[in-house]
């Protein structure tokens, strides 16, 4: 950060902190008239992957396809489709890939099971390590105790 003063850095940090959460709905005409419905549409859009940029949700992406999908979500919210129906409509066309939170099935079992597997492996390792630790030392013999007492005295 050559040439930037601490004041500038603080300003930048403040600016970033105050910036609103990422919403690509930069065009107000995209918003639904009813804020409740708009909130529902946004919640659905946040669960869907933009197929073009892939690490953004449909709601955040500026891609043409994402805008089209946002429009479809809103038109279906308007006609009264449930969230599940709308997501099912999307997965019928783009598969589970379109869901940012993949469902649990044979393909994703390893993915969802990874935390459990990690816990089992880690827990097993801890148990093994504890078992391997040397047993408590044998008590001192009378001879040793006498010697220790002598040593401590001197």
């Amino acid at each position, binding site marked *: 950060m050559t040439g930037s003063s601490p004041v500038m850095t603080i300003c930048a940090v403040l600016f970033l902190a105050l910036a609103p959460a990422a919403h690509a709905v930069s065009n107000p005409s995209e918003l639904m008239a009813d804020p409740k419905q708009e909130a529902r549409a946004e919640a659905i859009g946040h669960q869907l992957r933009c197929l*073009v940029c892939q690490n953004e949700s449909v709601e955040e992406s500026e891609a043409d396809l994402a805008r089209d999908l946002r429009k479809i979500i809103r038109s279906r919210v308007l006609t009264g489709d449930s969230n599940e129906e709308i997501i099912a409509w999307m*997965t019928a066309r783009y598969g589970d890939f379109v869901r940012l939170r993949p469902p649990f099935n044979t393909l994703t079992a390893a993915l969802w099971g990874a935390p459990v597997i990690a816990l089992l492996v880690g827990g097993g390792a801890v148990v093994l390590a504890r078992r391997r630790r040397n047993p408590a030392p044998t008590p001192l013999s009378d001879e040793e105790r006498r010697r220790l007492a002598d040593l401590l005295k001197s």
Partner: protein
Amino acid sequence: MIDRTIKRRLVLLSPLAIAAAGGVGFWAMLGRMRDGTFDPRGVPSMLIGKKLPEFSLPGQPPGAGFSSADVLAAGRPVLINFFASWCVPCVIEAPLLMRLHAANTPIWGIAYKDKPDATAAFLKRTGDPYARIARDEPGRVAIDFGVYGVPESYLVDRTGIVRWRWAGPLSEDVVAQQLDPLLRKFA
């Protein structure tokens, strides 16, 4: 006692075995990425083995458009190719499509989110390999196909079942290894 040490060794070796299995899997994945049979960013098509979506689209003037019923009526496998004048990979695959066209493969084009004039200029420049051309300016039919970029090609058999989809420009290898055998199989 010996039995216990063997057991302990096995337990200690199991993380190594898991790591090794992971490594082999990763190596296989890299191999498939290199020869193009696996694309981690690729979106698998939901249409394979299913009926093509119903649609009816206007044509590129002066030609008439086509509908899903027309594809069925073709009586032979049809390669549906989504393209656009603004799409660079479409320019790359154009010569190959011309060659397929010359070899009597029916290619039906769908111009995606493109203006008629721009499409016409594009076809004049790169050649027109299409038996028929429809226009999907809103891009809505493309969504029903599960298109997420252009070009994309779908092989539809004579009964209207989608047999194959390729996202991205076709290459000589893809045509020789995947498309040609399927064209022969469903001819």
